[in-house]
């Protein structure tokens, strides 16, 4: 029996292939059960209109018990969205990726949540502590203990 993460991810992948991703979300690659890429785009009216961002998921062997490490891809000309909860290194300050992760969530549900996080943003601006955080941030955002200061955005 394969590990829990690959088995569950296999099922999530099957479902994505069968039912497709929600609007604005596209699977870029899922060649293995360690790293998946998606593009997300905010549909409709928003400050991110017609901007496409790339999300990277990295999975630990005990996914879904442990949360995936989700970041915006900031290499090869890709950029992270300018957003109060998104650092310029691609790290995302979102509670569902940290202490509010639930094993019931899935890759697609995370995509939808982040998409709506962008959609509800009224003003493009970086996190107040962006420079300081980016200077010292670990590679894996899961090693950061974010303080979720603002639930409104």
């Amino acid at each position, binding site marked *: 029996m394969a590990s829990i993460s690959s*088995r569950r991810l296999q099922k*999530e992948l099957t479902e994505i292939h069968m039912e497709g991703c929600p609007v604005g979300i596209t699977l870029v690659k899922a060649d293995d059960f360690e790293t998946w890429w998606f593009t997300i785009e905010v549909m409709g009216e928003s400050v991110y209109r017609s901007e496409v961002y790339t999300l990277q998921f990295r999975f630990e062997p005990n996914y879904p*018990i442990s949360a995936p490490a989700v970041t915006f891809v900031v290499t090869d000309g890709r950029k992270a969205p300018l957003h109060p909860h998104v650092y310029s290194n691609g790290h995302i300050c979102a509670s569902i990726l940290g202490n509010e992760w*639930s*094993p*019931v969530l899935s890759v697609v549900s995370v995509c939808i949540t982040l998409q709506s996080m962008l959609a509800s943003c009224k003003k493009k601006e970086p996190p107040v502590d962006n420079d300081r955080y980016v200077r010292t941030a670990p590679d894996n955002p899961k090693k950061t203990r974010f303080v979720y200061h603002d639930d409104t955005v």
Partner: protein
Amino acid sequence: MGNSSSSSRPHDESVDFGQLVPQGVYTGPRDWNQSITAQLIIARRLAPFYRPLEDYEESWDDDQILAARKALSDSETEQLPPPPPPTNKKRSGSLKEPSRPEAAVYRHAVECPICFLYYPPNINHSRCCDQAICTECFVQIKRNEPTATHLVSEPAACPYCVQENFGVVYTPPPWRAGIASEGGGSPWSDSPRGSSPSIDTPYPTHKRRQKSFGADSAEVVLTDHIRPDWEAKLAAVRAAVQRRANRRIIMRQVGDRLIPVGVTSGRVHALTPEEAAQAEAASTEGSGSRRSRRRQQQPQNGNFEQFMGMGGAELEELMIMEAMRLSLIEHEEQQRKEAEQKKKAETAVANNDSGASTSSVTASSSAPQPSPSTLSVSQPTSSRSRSPSPNPLQVLKDTASGWRRRTSSPPPVTLSAALSAVSTASAVLNSTEIETSNSTPATPTIIERNTIESEQTTAPITNPIVPVSSPTITDTSDAATALEPQPTIAPYSESVPVIEIPDRPVPSHQDSMLSAISMASSTGETYDNLPSSPESDSSVDREPLLTPPAAATPKNVLTNAPITAEGYFGDASAAAE
């Protein structure tokens, strides 16, 4: 199946065709309490660990169901129990299609929303929002481990509705099989309603509950129930943090400088700021006479609360420290009162009826024998009487003071302190050799034994010991003269005799010190040695650790008092006064 409840090997057993141990869905550490979990499964309060189906279709027949039961990875298969053996009960012939209950249990299988695998419909449901969760996933859900920076442990939240204190409720099937199936009989052959997991009697579909169960309901199994150690873990992390915060640097005052000599382990309880200030004030207070300082500190001695929680070994260590400390004081007092001592010693010698013993003592000084071997006889005494300044006992003092500063957290003998105590012994040894070398005429055999003894007993050196006649010493006549130059030696050199050793508590103390050392090093209760500082006479703390000197039984140093722990304390104080 049948009579299985008596088996002693639970993992060979099944409950309602499921197992008591996980079936390998998760590969991480099994950090829950497996025996509690197994008990809950047997009690039908938690669904057994069923081998999950990778997929499930209602139309499948038994073979398809059994084929879908996931093969476990090779490594896991070996350690996992075999699937429940097929029941070849008598009625099997008469049955309709699904004759195999181990397949039938999967009828109307339910997909666990977390691992996406299919389980028999008798699956756990969250107490709060009535969502299905298999036992494999349930045992994975736990509190976040507390860390040094995050000293709280919140109960695990429901993965579905995020309500605190996640727990599940299990509704067992109407039939029973395996462990604790009543009467040990086959559930389907005997039970009235033919209540076997067959297609005829499908597991009643789970009706959505109207109410949720409280976290304290009897039916509910909480994540904390199968991880009862969470509190201990939290306490351990907190204690570690506390310990770190309590760590103190041990300073020794040299002149007006403070020199760090070590770090406390911060174990038991650290000095409160007030205590620390008090201790500091006491130790640095003026350079008045030692006696006056002692007197000032006496009030503190009345407080024994700090020793209340101590075990015997800790207390023993403390006592030895105290003995050492008192011996230092005694030593110093003795130096000052050499003249008086002389007189007393003489009287003691006179009074001593043991005859040979008295003389034997003194013999040493009269017959200078430079050979190094001879020294050992007088060692115990010499440490006391030795007045010359290069004073090995200073080491002892320092050690004692180091201990004293940590009185509030005494049990962990600090490594360096203990080591220095040990080295003190050798220092004493060496120094005494030099000083006393000309004084002892002892025979070689005695010397040897005495050496051993003195190595073992750093602290008790000062004990007045009943003069014992030592056959080896022949020169009685010299006793009086010997006393003149080094009067104090006389009574004490008698203490050397090997005969006395067994009666002395010391060797065991020594043991406890040694064990304390190894304990300190092995537990990682670090005592960091800092560069040692130069000797200083002035700064040593002198408060007694245990007995207020006044309370101790005063004894004349020279009396033939039996040697007991009280003996030395009493003697020490008497000598000091």
